[in-house]
């Protein structure tokens, strides 16, 4: 029983981490353009992030 009481919160916490990661990805707009994301794989030269200071 004690092992259960320890393991269950741990399991839920780890699962929660996954959920938080998904929600973060959603909020940062990674799901807004799925077709574009698929097409960008074919491009070379993609720097991470498009911040360019001209």
């Amino acid at each position, binding site marked *: *029983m004690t092992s259960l009481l320890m393991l269950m919160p741990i399991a839920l916490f780890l*699962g929660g981490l996954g959920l938080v990661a998904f929600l973060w990805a959603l909020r940062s707009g990674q799901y*807004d353009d799925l077709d574009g994301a698929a*097409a960008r794989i074919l491009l070379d030269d993609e720097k991470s992030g*498009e911040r360019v200071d001209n």
Partner: protein
Amino acid sequence: MTTDLAMQGCCPTPFIPDATPPGLSDRWARALDDGRHHVDFLAPDVHCATCISTIEGALRAQSGVLTARVNLSTRRVAVDYDPTRVNVATLAGVIASTGYAVRPYDAAALRDVTSDAQSRHLLAAMAVAGFSAANIMLLSISVWSGAVDATRDLMHWVSALIAIPTVAFSGQVFFRSAWAGLRARRMNMDLPISVAVLLAVGYSLYETAHSAPHAWFDAAVSLLFFLLIGRYLDHRTRRLARSAAAELTALSATGARRMDGQGQAHWVPIDSIAPGDVIEVLPGERIPVDGVVTEGRSDIDRSLVTGESAPETASPGTLLHAGMNNLTGPLRLSVSATGDATLLADIARMVAAAENSQHRYVQLADRVARFYSPIVHLLALISALVWLWLTGGDGHRAVQIASAVLIITCPCALALAVPTVQAVASSVLFARGIMIKDGAALEKLAEVDHVVFDKTGTLTTGRAQLTDAPPRDDTAWPVALALAAKSRHPLAQSLLAVGGAMAKLDDIQEHAGLGLSAMSSRGLVRMGSAAYLGMTDAQGMSIWVDPADGRGPRVFRFVDTLRSDAAAVVAALRARGLHISLFSGDAPQAVAKVASDLGIVDARPRMTPADKAAALAELAAQGRKVLMVGDGLNDAPALAAAWVAMSPASASDVSRAAAPLVWVAQGLAPVALALRIAGRARMLMRGNLQLTAVYNALAVPIAALGMVTPLIAALAMSGSSILVSLNALRLKWEARA
């Protein structure tokens, strides 16, 4: 997937982009917090990776641009820039210079902002429900494997702790919709869902507090998860649909060059132009308002507005409409109608009216949902009452049975039945270069019994091709090519495409509306319309050339060629038992020729946009379900008014927005393909709904007899949902075969 699309050659649009004047209003831009500005552009022609890199590369090379991102799914370009170093007009020019038609637009006005936010909320709700369902299911496994007493209670309590916040967050989608329906005195499908979820959670809490053996938390949360998947798929299919009427506002010019008293031209916004003003339209520009020509001669491309294949000459006294392209010479127009009164605005109104009437079509899933809701509630109530009577007043048992009935008649299979097929059909069509914007269109396609084609740009390629010319060694050829190189007239462009040696000519002059002249070693050479060279010629598209070698003018004749597979496709459609018609704005001879080539009996020439819409209304009154295939601006009202419509990607923006289906390939084969896939999809949708009905027919008696436990409920719901999804995937497997 995009590599499967047969393209003419990547990317540049055949249309001349609107000239963007200096000082184009920066009203499209939004100011962000730290002094940056943000602007969105519509770029309807982007469709592949190269398009993304071309546009983004060009923008990033522009000084003052901070971020630039192309969204391929919605065909927008989002740019953050420094307003002190660059403005909207320059940005538009940069994109246009890469060959992509582009115009700024107001995201808030087109309601794009809310659609994206809704999509995100659905995904978030789905993620939370999925997380909870997975975890609660794991906890339930230990209960089903035989946990008892304190352990079982612990599992149930932890499940409750997970389930309650989940239902509060993810369930809102359904609660809000059910509540809105109730307030409007309607029972939509979200009502039994909401009742089932709330009842399951509430009842389980009660049971858990009394240490009972069964709790239904996993059923409630799994129900939410499956339903949200269906909702999200449905939402994704609809997201691409844009109001064509709103699209028309983006098509209209934003300004024009107005002449003042001293003969100087000033750019003014379109709103400040009034009837009676004189405006100037340069070659290559689109005419911004309706007006009568006061000075100048030119050739006008009317194809977008009337569908006529040959350019017409405009001279003082000619009435021109907003949306036509000025080709060869500068014109001064006296404005006759602006804004709401232009032909363009008329078309927009017809389109908007047609779009509103479309909302009356009720999709298959909604039709089923209408009687599903009352039946389910009735069954639950009856079971409760019967058990109440059988057990002599045992309320507990009665509620238990009623909950079981509500949960097991899980509408998740029903909610998934249609969206899954739509999602699979959309992806199958997309892989073949057909974009579908609206799930209802798929169902409607399957019911089509009559196909109406437009002529120019739909059955034909919209480009003139040489059919009749002097022999290649004729002296007319080098002269013609040399003169054609200096002309914007589309027939000259087609001639130039043939290629060949050019003569050396001096002093080439273009006489707008007439032709070109130049000096050669032999004397004055001329090329142009029959009237310019003093010939009488009744036949349509032709160029006359006089190379001054004493033998008189020779003629080059052009024809607008049919698309390569037009005859085959029309024959195939006729073989399927469909009626075929041809509606065109072009002259009778041109229409008759195409009709006879394709064997179409019902061919009507000289149809205005209003005529086409009226003819479709007539067919609809006869009970025909019409598929309209068209591309020009003059087809937009008809496309919006037809039962369902398809438009080629080369079409005007408005037609692409008005038609629920757009195809990319050069030929007409996608029309036949779309009809075939729609038929198959409808069969699978019906199959799925039948599966759901069978499932419910089996499940309800079992629940009513009190034999359903949470384990059985979980198995049944998951099983039915998976079965329905697998059935939908058949469409993909068959298409691949």
